[in-house]
């Protein structure tokens, strides 16, 4: 692969920039020095090259600051094996990012195969080197301790950390496990696992362990049951002892009570509370006797009261008449309450009524209708208010009419005469605006001048017939690019093909010579030749036998010798024949290659001639000489296109100016026509006349509009006055309708307005007079009714009834009250007498019952002379002794209940015994203690068994165990991987040393000596027990191990290794571009020259690209490397 050109289309700060890497002349090394100052973008350029080859990395892009990441684009022309020059582009898409020159996606395989499967990192490591890498590489290969395999690997791959890698892997494995290592991961982990295992085994509840716990629990249960039985037995004996003691004591008590009862009377036990019952009966009998005596005295006293209060027959009619009078009312109030004042009130009301009649008469007089009925003018309030409203409506309408007529008269006086109406100048104004828009031609004239100047500048340097060339048609830019690219490509290909043809011709000549030489070799005899010599010998022998002459003998001898020689050569000539066949094959191959190269060359020559002819035609079309270089085509095309654009601009500017002049004339004609139609003077400066007319038109138009507004306002005021007159008429008609039925003396607005107060008074006085008449009439009716009632009451009481009615009524009311009180006393005495008689009868019955009950209390008891109280006390004492005896018997019998009979009898026989109960209590305490101890032991055993079963298992330990095992398992794998990796790597490095030493060591030595002479004269390889070691040789013949070399020397050794690695790769796989970034900036001139020569060696095998910002290195390169190409970094813009 060769990089012919790198296109930085949109990348970093670069836009449409390119770096061309010229092909070297025949025989010169392919070295390009790219010169640019610091920060010129060398790193950017290398990055772009990597992204072209391997695609853009994902994520944020370091060079996407001027252009968006999606817009980044790089390209290159690469020379690929078996494909030749290919133009490729790369954008930042994730897929199909590799494009051809027409932006069509192409397969990545094209580059992958050309890069021999190298990854981006591997390419960067192998085919780039900078000063830092050189320095660090030198330092790091010291770690290899001269190991040949590692050093050659470093040279091949660019990777210098092999030693550290192997050490790191070994250290990792050792950290996990090392023989006799105490702190290794494995040792620590294994120890912990042992501890965990022991703890888990100890904690695990096995069947056997559980059985032991269960049996212990069961044994404790049996022991507890026995102790519990013993305790129960002790309790039983204690109970038997206690029962025997009770039996013994109660028997003695019963005997004493039987003795006491024998002195008391017989008879059944008294019921409970008998003494209290007897006492109660005695008290009851006494009380009842007293109550009967008191009742008899009360009855006699009540009979006296009844006699003193006889019954009154007038009570009922008096109450009825008085009730009727109480029902009578005056004006809603009871008559009786106001009977005494009714007479005086009647007189006062009659006077008030006469006064009101006089006021009515006065009002009618003021209204000037004294004879009119008051009811005809006593209007209701609503009618009065409506009448007042109609009067007010008439007054308001009259005032409005006066005001409107005054305003109209004032406006008419102010308006004055009408002015003259102005003319319509719209058309004139439009024409004036149109004319003013095209009045100025200076802008178009200036544009025309500018276009002429631009055209003059554009055609400077062009042939005189430039416009004819443009008219004939210019070739397309793409056509020029294609032709120029084809011509350049064909020229380069032709040179390459010529070179190849020369090489093939030389190869053919060499193969021909070799074939001839092999053919000429004496031992190149094939089987046919031996058969031919044998046939010739036999034929000559036959002739010799026939003739037997000396001549035939000689001839036979020669033939026999030739045959023997041929056979001898045939037998010894297998290798020569093999060589001949190889030479023949090589000759054929060389011929074929030569023919192919010749054919390719001829084809290319033909195509280039055709391209040359196309170039000539295009040159003529562009106004160039027929043999002009295609590189000039684009510039000329651009100049011609520029001239064509400028010429077109001139034509456009001239056309625009003419069009504007036409527009101006047309506008002037229109303006004159509009002015003439309005009668303006068109003889002089028409625009000035029109401008003045348009200016005056504004003030005239304003005066006319103002007069029209005033006339309109006057018309509105007249309309309003007419409306007010109409409203006044309507109000007057309404008032007339309302007063038509009233007997008024004056029905005008003013008359009605003056009568309104009298009408309001008449309405009020007339209403009061009506109310008072009604009241006087009611009073007179009431007084008549009162008199009638008084007469009836007098008749009931037996009086004459001619007195004051009120007094009669009061007497009747007093008579009624006295009779009612006497009747009440009589009724009360009768009721109390009846109650007392009934109470006496009940007391007689109760007394008889109490006496019978008292006798029943002593029924079936022995007879006695004692009064009831003493008798019942004696019987109660007897019953108390009987009860004590029964209790003692019950307690005695109860003491045996539930007690073992045998134990009871046994204990009873022991009595009396004062210490027996204490002995039994102690026995119970002892048994209790034993039982409690057994119970605790049983519970503890059960708890332990249960707790053991229910305990949380040691999952924490099991989990830690599992986790640790996982760690160790993974750690063991990693350790094994590390150890096996080291093993495999060391084996591979030995193989590498064996495989590459023959091809690389010479290159390493040559480069190392070239770089370090005269301090070092060569390198050598020592075989040691741990592998082959590279050493340096000094002029004195001393050998120095690599790790003992100075840092600078090791850096140079590393460079030598990289150079050898590059050459090895180039030989095996084919060359790839090697990028060296200012690796010589710390070298002195001598070392730099040597390094540059080595770069030339790279260029001899493949392509070397040197970036530098040191001008003196550029000079040194020009001085040191024949035909070196020097290019500048492109501008960033």
């Amino acid at each position, binding site marked *: 692969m060769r990089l012919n050109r790198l296109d930085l289309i949109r990348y970093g700060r670069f836009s449409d920039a390119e770096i061309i890497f010229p092909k070297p002349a025949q025989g010169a090394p392919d070295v390009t020095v790219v010169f640019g100052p610091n920060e010129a973008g060398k790193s950017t350029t290398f990055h772009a090259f990597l992204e072209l080859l391997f695609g853009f990395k994902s994520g944020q892009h370091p060079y996407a600051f001027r252009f968006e990441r999606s817009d980044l684009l790089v390209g290159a022309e690469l020379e690929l094996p078996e494909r030749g020059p290919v133009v490729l582009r790369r954008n930042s898409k994730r897929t199909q990012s590799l494009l051809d020159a027409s932006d069509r996606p192409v397969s990545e395989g094209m580059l992958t195969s050309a890069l021999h499967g190298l990854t981006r990192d591997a390419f960067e490591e192998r085919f780039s080197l900078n000063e830092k890498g050189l320095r660090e590489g030198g330092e790091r290969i010291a770690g290899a301790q001269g190991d040949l395999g590692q050093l050659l*690997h470093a040279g091949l791959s660019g990777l210098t950390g092999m030693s550290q890698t192997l050490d790191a892997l070994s250290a990792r494995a050792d950290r996990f496990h090392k023989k006799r290592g105490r702190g290794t991961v494995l040792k620590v982990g*294994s120890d912990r696992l042992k501890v965990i295992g022991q703890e888990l085994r100890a904690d695990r509840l096995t069947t056997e362990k559980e059985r032991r716990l269960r049996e212990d629990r069961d044994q404790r249960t049996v022991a507890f049951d026995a102790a519990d039985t013993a305790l129960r037995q002790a309790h039983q004996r204690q109970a038997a002892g206690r029962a025997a003691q009770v039996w013994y004591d109660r028997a003695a008590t019963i005997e004493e009570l039987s003795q006491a009862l024998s002195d008391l009377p017989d008879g059944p036990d008294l019921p409970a509370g008998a003494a209290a019952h007897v006492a109660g009966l005695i008290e009851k009998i006494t009380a009842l006797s007293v109550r009967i005596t008191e009742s008899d005295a009360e009855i006699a006293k009540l009979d006296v009261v009844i006699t003193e209060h006889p019954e009154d027959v007038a009570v009922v009619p008096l109450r009825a008449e008085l009730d009727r009078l109480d029902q009578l009312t005056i004006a809603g109030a009871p008559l009786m309450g106001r009977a005494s004042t009714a007479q005086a009130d009647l007189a006062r009301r009659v006077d008030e009524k006469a006064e009101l009649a006089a006021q009515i008469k006065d009002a009618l007089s003021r209204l000037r209708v004294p004879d009119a009925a008051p009811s005809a003018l006593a209007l209701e309030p609503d009618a009065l208010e409506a009448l007042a409203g109609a009067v007010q409506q008439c007054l308001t309408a009259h005032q409005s009419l006066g005001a409107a007529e005054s305003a109209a008269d004032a406006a008419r006086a102010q308006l004055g005469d009408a002015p003259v109406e102005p003319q319509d100048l719209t058309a004139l104004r439009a024409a004036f605006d149109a004319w003013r828009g095209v009045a100025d031609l200076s802008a178009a004239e200036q544009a025309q001048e500018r276009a002429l100047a631009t055209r003059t500048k554009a055609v400077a340097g062009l042939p005189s017939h430039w416009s004819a060339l443009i008219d004939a048609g210019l070739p397309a830019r793409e056509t020029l690019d294609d032709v120029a690219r084809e011509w350049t490509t064909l020229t380069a290909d032709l040179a390459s093909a010529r070179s190849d043809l020369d090489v093939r011709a030389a190869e053919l000549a060499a193969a021909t010579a070799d074939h001839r030489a092999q053919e000429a070799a004496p031992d190149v005899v094939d089987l046919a030749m031996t058969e031919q010599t044998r046939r010739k010998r036999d034929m000559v022998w036959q002739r010799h036998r026939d003739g037997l002459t000396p001549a035939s003998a000689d001839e036979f001898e020669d033939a026999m010798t030739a045959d023997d020689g041929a056979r001898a050569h045939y037998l010894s000539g297998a290798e020569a024949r093999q060589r001949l066949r190889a030479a023949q094959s090589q000759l054929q191959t060389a011929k074929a290659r030569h023919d192919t190269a010749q054919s390719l060359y001829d084809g290319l020559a033909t195509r280039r001639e055709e391209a040359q002819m196309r170039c000539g035609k295009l040159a003529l079309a562009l106004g160039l000489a027929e043999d002009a270089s295609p590189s000039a085509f684009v510039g000329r095309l651009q100049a011609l296109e520029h001239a064509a654009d400028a010429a077109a601009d001139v034509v456009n500017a001239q056309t625009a100016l003419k069009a504007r002049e036409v527009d101006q004339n047309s506008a002037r004609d229109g303006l004159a026509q509009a002015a003439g139609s309005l009668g303006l003077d068109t003889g002089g400066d028409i625009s000035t006349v029109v401008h003045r007319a348009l200016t005056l038109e504004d003030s005239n138009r304003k005066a006319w509009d103002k007069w029209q507004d005033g006339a309109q306002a006057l018309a509105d005021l007249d309309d309003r006055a007419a409306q007010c007159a109409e409203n006044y008429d309507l109000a007057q008609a309404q008032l007339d309708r309302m007063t038509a039925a009233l007997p008024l003396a004056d029905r005008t607005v003013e008359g009605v307005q003056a009568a309104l107060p009298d009408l309001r008074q008449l309405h009020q006085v007339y209403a009061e007079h009506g109310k008072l008449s009604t009241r006087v009439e009611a009073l007179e009716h009431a007084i008549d009714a009162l008199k009638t009632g008084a007469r009836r009451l007098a008749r009931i009481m037996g009086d004459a009834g001619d007195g004051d009615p009120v007094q009669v009524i009061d007497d009747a009311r007093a008579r009624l009250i006295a009779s009612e009180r006497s009747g009440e006393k009589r009724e009360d005495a009768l009721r109390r007498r009846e109650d007392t008689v009934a109470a006496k009868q009940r007391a007689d019955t109760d007394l008889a019952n109490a006496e019978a009950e008292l006798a029943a209390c002593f029924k079936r008891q022995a007879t006695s002379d004692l009064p009831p109280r003493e008798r019942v006390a004696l019987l109660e004492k007897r019953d108390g002794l009987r009860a004590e005896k029964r209790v003692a018997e019950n307690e005695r019998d109860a003491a045996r209940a539930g007690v073992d009979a045998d134990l009871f009898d046994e204990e009873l026989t022991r009595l009396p015994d004062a210490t027996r109960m204490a002995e039994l209590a102690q026995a119970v305490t002892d048994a209790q203690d034993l039982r409690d101890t057994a119970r605790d032991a049983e519970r503890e055993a059960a708890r332990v068994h249960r707790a*053991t079963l229910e305990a949380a298992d040691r999952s924490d330990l099991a989990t830690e165990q599992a986790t640790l095992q996982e760690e160790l398992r993974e750690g063991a794998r990693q350790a094994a991987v590390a150890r096996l990796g080291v093993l*495999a790597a060391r084996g591979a490095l030995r193989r590498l040393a064996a495989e590459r030493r023959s091809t690389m060591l010479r290159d390493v030595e040559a480069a190392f000596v070239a770089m370090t002479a005269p301090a070092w004269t060569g390198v050598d390889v020592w075989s040691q027990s741990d592998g082959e070691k590279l050493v340096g040789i000094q002029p004195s013949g001393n050998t120095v191990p690599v790790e003992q070399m100075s840092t600078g020397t090791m850096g140079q050794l590393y460079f030598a290794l990289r150079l050898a690695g590059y050459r090895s790769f180039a030989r095996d796989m084919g060359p790839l571009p090697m990028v060296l970034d200012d690796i010589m900036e710390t070298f002195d001139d001598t070392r730099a020259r040597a390094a540059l020569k080595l770069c030339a060696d790279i260029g001899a095998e493949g392509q070397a690209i040197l970036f530098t910002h040191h001008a003196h290195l550029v000079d040194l390169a020009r001085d040191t490397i024949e035909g070196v190409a020097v290019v500048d970094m492109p501008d960033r813009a």
Partner: protein
Amino acid sequence: MRLLVSADTHLGSPIRSVALRNPDLGDRLKQASRDTFAKIIDLAIDEQVDALMLAGDIFDNHYPDLKSRAFLVTQLSRAADAGVPTVLIRGNHDALLDHRAHGALGEGIHLLHKGAPTVVIGDTAFHGLSFDAAHVAKSFLPDYPQRVPDKRNVGLMHTSLDGAAGHDPYAPCAERDLMAHGYDLWCLGHIHAPFERADGPVLAVMPGIPQPRHFGERRGGSVTMVTLGEGAPEYERRAIGQLGFGEASVDLSDCADQQQVLRSLRAVFLEAQEAGRDTALRLHVTTEHHTAELITELAAEVLEGVEGVFLDKVKSSPPPDQQSAESDDLLRLMREELHEAGFRQAALDELEALRLALPADIAGALAEEELDALLEEAVAEVALTLHAGDTA
């Protein structure tokens, strides 16, 4: 009728992952199998299922502890007290369930075996067989009772159905024969990854291990709720385990700096987060510049800020195209070296030396048959370490 089906609880068997080196996670999961079983009982009670099915391997032969049996009895009694009976059978890990040695389990807990292969609960007959040996080569199916007429019939079986790969061949049974036996539902155990098979109205359910113990059981972590109605049985898987295992891949080839690496790792971890349970993640990293050791350190740093995700293991490997690069002499020569008889013997010696130093329980990790895989890793590891450590 609603049934909660579980199997393979392996009580007492711990989780095996380096992720448990995290103290919080280790503490949370130290009783993972017990805690998960208690959650199963809680679920059965909360959902008021008609019965709980346990299709064998309730215990683990590697952790024979009668405390686990006591725990089981306590939990199943809790369910029974809440009205949820349990039907269970023994699997190949259930020596602790030997009723002859340890007695009955309690009221409402039905261990089915040859002497009592059927129990009827409500309108459903449950059939099951428990075998005593850890390895049974023949099918249990011919010994299962016939279908009980006029009842729904549910079978419990611990079996490597159709000789499931990756599991001990325990009582292998053909799926076709199983589905044709006449039962309505089969509750199966032994295979730790859940699955369901339906054949017309017949359903077979393998609920899987409720709490996965290692990466190989990452598909587990569930129980199955089955509803027996008029038509075919319906089922629904319910997640139950506290920790799940997952794997994720991340390509760090394009990461220009460590910050990008950290960002990429964080994105992977956030994606692995699962609501309601922790995740132990196995991470496959494609990179040319980062060893597994370095990735593990960086991942630990990132995981401090990511809830519920923990690192199980890191596998770091170079991009595939680099592994086969024809131009890489070292790779080529290392691969050639692997085929040398002398080298293989030396490699076996190295392996044996390391294996002999390991505790016996984990010595299998470095068995001879692992050599080829280890060598492949070794070659990749050398390349990775070399590129990671060399920027020249």
